[in-house]
């Protein structure tokens, strides 16, 4: 399944979710379909789920809120390993992704 508009694309392949482009939606309501898609994947019974953010150039604070909410959702599921793959190519990732680790210390954050 995929959700996209002219600026971004988010889709899942098995237990990995890919985020691509610029996420600048207006708030929690606008991000709700993306939240539902990924939250559904978290509850499918995988041992590990990966958020692949290497194509995510930019996201606004409501987008950061989306990632944080999903991290908290994964935190509640004790036996699920959440891997977050990021890149130093997009400056927001080194600044804001470590916050996810503070929310969920067992999260595996890979910034390359």
């Amino acid at each position, binding site marked *: 399944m995929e959700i996209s508009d002219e600026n971004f694309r988010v889709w899942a392949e098995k237990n990995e979710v890919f985020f691509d482009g*610029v996420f*600048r939606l*207006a*708030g*929690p*309501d606008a991000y709700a379909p993306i939240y539902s898609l990924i939250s559904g994947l978290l509850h499918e019974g995988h041992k590990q789920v990966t958020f692949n953010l290497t194509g995510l150039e*930019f996201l*606004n*604070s*409501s987008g*950061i*809120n989306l990632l*944080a*909410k999903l991290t*908290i*959702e994964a935190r509640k599921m004790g036996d699920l390993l959440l891997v977050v793959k990021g890149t130093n*190519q*997009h*400056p*927001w990732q080194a*600044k*804001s992704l470590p*916050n996810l680790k*503070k*929310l969920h210390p067992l999260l595996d954050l890979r910034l390359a």
Partner: protein
Amino acid sequence: MAPQIFGIESLADISLDSGARLTLSDGPLQLGWKHSGMTSDFIAEIMALPYSRSRKDYLQAHHDIGYLSNELIENAVKFRQPGEILIEAGIIDGSFLLRVKNAIDSATSFRLQQLLHRLQSNEPGILLLEQIETNAISSTSGSGLGLLTLLSDYDARMAWTFEENEDQHIILTTTAAVAMPPSSNR
């Protein structure tokens, strides 16, 4: 009534007359939202140019200017009362400065001032995590997450000025500054 200033008062007085000035006209929220993205991209494009000698510095400057501009303009579009949004931007003493001025209602003013009071005695990084946890259980709008990420993740310096106007609205002026990379070809 005298203006009320929160944050770093000296920032509120810095003149941006030598910078760029843009005005966003009133209009529907959806169009305004699109314009906030376009405007912040435009500001990042023109203001990051002095750093184009180094790709790393340019990417950093472009991103930081874009993120800061986008958050402040999104807030102005989301919470404004009918009227124009005035935007001023410039690079002064190695920092990018953005000033956004618009009318808000008293409820928005009250919520923002509550957050600013909490900031006076708390670390923005701690408030950011608290706010994220709160948002995870209730989808509140106007949570101040954008301001908290700017203060916590971008080390932004900020000032907020509240003034009452004759229409019983409050004119909010937000000024924010982020350090730019040290080397530039200015």
